[in-house]
C-alpha cells in the first residue's frame, strides 16, 4: 500500500493545476508580472479548429474604421509588403515537411499544431504542395480591392521576409537570403535569383520564418533567425547562430550576429526616422499558461536577451542544462511585454496620415494566437501607442474577431504593413485573405 502514496500525492499535485491565476493585462508593458514556472503534467493546450471566413464575414475594427478583404482565395498568406507605387506583395508560404522525430512527443505535438494551421484554402497554382511564392496585388482604381492578383515569383523555399532595396527584391527563404532584379511596377520576375548568404535551415528548422528589414541607409539587411527548439531540447549544436538577429552586408553578404538570445524574432522594422531596430519575439512554452510573455523590443547591438538560459533578463529557466550563469549575468530585459503565448509575428509602425493623429508612430502587432493555454490569447492585431520613440500604455485590440463566438477559427493574423494611402494591411494565413483597414472618419483617438 505504501507504494501508492507517492502516486496519490502526484495525482493530487496534477489535479491542482498550474495555480497561475493571471490576467493577461498584468503581463503587458515594460514590467510584466511573472508568476512562478508551472510545468504541468499535460501542457495547457488550446487550439481552435479552422473553419475560415464565410461569405460576408470579416474581422472587427474600431468604430470609424472600415475593413475589407483586399484579396481572398490566397493560400497561407503570411507576410505583406506595401510598395511605394501602391502594389502589395504577399508572401504565401508554409514550412515543407515535418521535423525529425527525436521523442514520442514530437509527432503528437506536430498533430496538435496541424489542427491550428488548417488545410489551406485555394488550390496551389502548381497543384499540390505548400505554397512557395510571392503574389502581387494591384488596386489600380483605389477601391480597396485588388483587381490584379498575379504570381510575381514562385518556387521559393518557405519564404517569409521580403524587402525592396534599390533595384533588387530581397527574399528571406528559410535557408538563404536571395535577391532578384526588380523594378516596382513589374508583375513577373523571371530572372534567376542570386544568393546573398546562406541562412540556418536544415532538417529540424523549428522556427522557420526568416524576417527581414533594411537599415535606413540601405547598406545593411537584418534577418531574424528563430531557434531550432523550444528551449534547446534538440541540443546546443542545433542552435548555432540561431535565436538571433543577423546583420548582413547588402552588397557582399558578409554577416555577423547583431543580437542574440531572442527565441523567435519576427517583424523586424526600423522605427521611422531613427536607426533603432525593433522586433517582436515569441518566448518559450511549457512553463504554464502565463509564462513566458512574448514581447516587443528595440534591439541593441551586441545584446543578449537570455534565451535559452533565462527570460526577461535574469529569470533562470530550470530546464536548460548545462546552465550558463556567466551568460545569464549579461542578459538584458526587453522593452515591452505583449502577454503570454500571443505569438506576435508581424510589426508595422504607423507612418501614414489617414488615421487619426494618435496613431502616428504607434505600432501595429499581428498576434497569430496561442496554443499553450486553454483560454485563447492573441488572435488579433493590437495597437500600441508610442511617444518619443517609446511604447506607452497598454496594447489596444485593433483588428479582432478572428476567433468567432463559437470558438472556431476564421483566420489568424500574421504580417502587417501600412500601404501608400495609410491603410493597414493584414495577412491572414488560415483565413487565406489579405485584409485592408482604412479610416472612414469619426473615430475617437486611441486611449491607453
Amino acid at each position, binding site marked *: 500500500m505504501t*507504494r*501508492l502514496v*507517492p*502516486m496519490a500525492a*502526484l*495525482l493530487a499535485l*496534477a489535479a491542482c493545476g498550474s495555480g497561475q491565476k493571471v490576467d493577461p493585462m498584468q503581463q503587458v508593458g515594460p514590467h510584466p508580472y511573472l508568476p512562478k514556472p508551472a*510545468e504541468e*503534467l*499535460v501542457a495547457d493546450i488550446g487550439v481552435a479548429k479552422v473553419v475560415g471566413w464565410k461569405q460576408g464575414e470579416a474581422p472587427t475594427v474600431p468604430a470609424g474604421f472600415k475593413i475589407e478583404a483586399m484579396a481572398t482565395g490566397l493560400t497561407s498568406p503570411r507576410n505583406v509588403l506595401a510598395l511605394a507605387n501602391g502594389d502589395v506583395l504577399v508572401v504565401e508560404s508554409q514550412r515543407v515537411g515535418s521535423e525529425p522525430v*527525436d*521523442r*514520442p*512527443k514530437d509527432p503528437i505535438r506536430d498533430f496538435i499544431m496541424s489542427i491550428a494551421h488548417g488545410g489551406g484554402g485555394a488550390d496551389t497554382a502548381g497543384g499540390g504542395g505548400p505554397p512557395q511564392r510571392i503574389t502581387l496585388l494591384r488596386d489600380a482604381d483605389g477601391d480597396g480591392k485588388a483587381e490584379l492578383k498575379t504570381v510575381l515569383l514562385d518556387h521559393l523555399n518557405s519564404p517569409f521576409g521580403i524587402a525592396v532595396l534599390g533595384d533588387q527584391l530581397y527574399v528571406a527563404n528559410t535557408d538563404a537570403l536571395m535577391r532578384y532584379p526588380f523594378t516596382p511596377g513589374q508583375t513577373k520576375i523571371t530572372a534567376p535569383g542570386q544568393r546573398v548568404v546562406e541562412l540556418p535551415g536544415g532538417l529540424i528548422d523549428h522556427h522557420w520564418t526568416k524576417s527581414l528589414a533594411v537599415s535606413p541607409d540601405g547598406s545593411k539587411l537584418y534577418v531574424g533567425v528563430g531557434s531550432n*527548439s*523550444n*528551449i*534547446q*531540447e*534538440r*541540443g546546443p549544436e542545433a542552435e548555432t547562430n540561431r535565436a538571433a538577429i543577423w546583420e548582413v552586408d547588402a552588397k557582399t553578404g558578409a554577416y555577423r550576429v547583431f543580437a542574440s538570445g531572442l527565441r523567435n524574432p519576427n517583424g523586424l522594422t526600423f522605427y521611422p526616422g531613427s536607426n533603432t531596430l525593433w522586433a517582436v519575439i515569441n518566448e518559450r512554452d*511549457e512553463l504554464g499558461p502565463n509564462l513566458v510573455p512574448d514581447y516587443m523590443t528595440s534591439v541593441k547591438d551586441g545584446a543578449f536577451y537570455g534565451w535559452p538560459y533565462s527570460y526577461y533578463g535574469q529569470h533562470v*529557466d*530550470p*530546464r*536548460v*542544462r*548545462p546552465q550558463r550563469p556567466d551568460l545569464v549575468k549579461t542578459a538584458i530585459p526587453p522593452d515591452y511585454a505583449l502577454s503570454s503565448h500571443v505569438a506576435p509575428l508581424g510589426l508595422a509602425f504607423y507612418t501614414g496620415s489617414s488615421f487619426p493623429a494618435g496613431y502616428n508612430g504607434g505600432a501595429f502587432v499581428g498576434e497569430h494566437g496561442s496554443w499553450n493555454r486553454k483560454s485563447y490569447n492573441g488572435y488579433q492585431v493590437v495597437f500600441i501607442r508610442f511617444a518619443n520613440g517609446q511604447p506607452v500604455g497598454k496594447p489596444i485590440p485593433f483588428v479582432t474577431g478572428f476567433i468567432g463566438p463559437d470558438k472556431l477559427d476564421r483566420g489568424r493574423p500574421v504580417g502587417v504593413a501600412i500601404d501608400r494611402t495609410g491603410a493597414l494591411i493584414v495577412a491572414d494565413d488560415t483565413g487565406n485573405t489579405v485584409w485592408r483597414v482604412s479610416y472612414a472618419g469619426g473615430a475617437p483617438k486611441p486611449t491607453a
Partner: protein
Amino acid sequence: MANSFVGPRGRVGVAGHPYSSLILPVPIVCFVGALLTDIAYVNSGGNLQWLNFSSWLLAAGLAFGAIAGILALIDLARLRELRSHWGWSAFGLLVASLVVEFINSLIHARDGWTAVVPTGLMLSAIAALLVLTYGWAWHESRYTPEVRS
C-alpha cells in the same frame, strides 16, 4: 524438487509457447532500462540522448506492458489454477507499474532537465521496483498451488 507448472498448453501463446516468455520481459527490460538511462542523464549533466532514450523505453514498455496485461487477463479468466494470490498480485503489480510509467512518460515529455529531475527519476525508480516484483510474482503464479504446499 519436481515442480509442475501451468502451461504452456491452455495459456495464450504463439505456436504452443506461452506469451509470457515472449512479452512479459519487455516491460521489465524497458522500465528497468529507463531507470538506468535516467541515471545516465543526470550523471551526464543533461546529455539529451539519455532523455530521448528514456522516453522511447517508456513508450515501448507501455505498449508491450498493455499487451501483456490484456493477455494476462485472458489467462486469468480462462485458467482457474492461475487465479491464485500470486496470479492476481502479478496482474496488480503490472497495472500499477503501467499507471506510474504513464504519468512518468508525461513528465518525460517536458523539455530538458525537469523531465527527469526530480519527479521523473523518482517515478522511474518506483516503476522499476514494481515491474521487477511483477515478473517475480508472475513466475511464482506458474506453479500450481498443490506443489507449493
